């Protein structure tokens, strides 16, 4: 691998890390967690779907 190619890879890695740091400082919790290597907090998508479904079901059967 040439020094030039290595340099490009390093720049790409740094860009990703800097972008992550930037998003973390802007309050992006997923980026903060990713930066620390931690698991992101918050509900799973299936939980969000379940809450929405429960609401829809209540509305649906109330309307009947």
């Amino acid at each position, binding site marked *: 691998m040439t*020094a030039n190619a*290595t*340099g490009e890879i*390093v*720049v790409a*890695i*740094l*860009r990703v*890390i*800097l972008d992550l740091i930037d998003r973390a400082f802007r309050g992006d919790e997923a980026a903060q967690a990713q930066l*620390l*290597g*931690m*698991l*992101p*907090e918050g*509900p*799973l*998508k*299936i*939980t*969000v*779907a*379940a809450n929405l*479904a429960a609401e*829809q*079901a*209540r509305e*649906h*059967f109330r309307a009947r």
Partner: protein
Amino acid sequence: MQRLTLVLVERLGAGLIVAAVAALLIGCGPSPAQRVVRYGGHALRSLDEQVAPRYTAAHEKALADAATLAAYQREMEPWNALQQTMQTTYDAFVAADLALEAGGEDTDALRRAACLLAALDTVAVRLVALDVPVPAALSEALRFGESFTGRCTGGP
């Protein structure tokens, strides 16, 4: 920012930066117990991507089929059991991750982390009940935990 990065590359040399980034990543890496916990958590997140659309599809079908709210809830019961198991297990992984991050690691932390991975087995059982194939990420996480510390036999 790009100019600054290029100047850094020129002045310090690519090799030096690679070494610095590698040292940073390796030096700040998680502990073995944290790796186990995060592996399980990420496996659940990966499973979540697959099952969330299936949950919504099941809900739409149940809504069309069921005549009453009680009938709808009966039809959705296995899916809701899966959702509750997944969320509770994931919350436990997050809590364990935070506790370990806060310095709560001791000599028994690895075994307790493996016990937490055993909870994924309950998720797998729920998936089988729904005829949803257990994804490789989940079975791998279970195997990963076992390979680390053996089966969880004692209390946590």
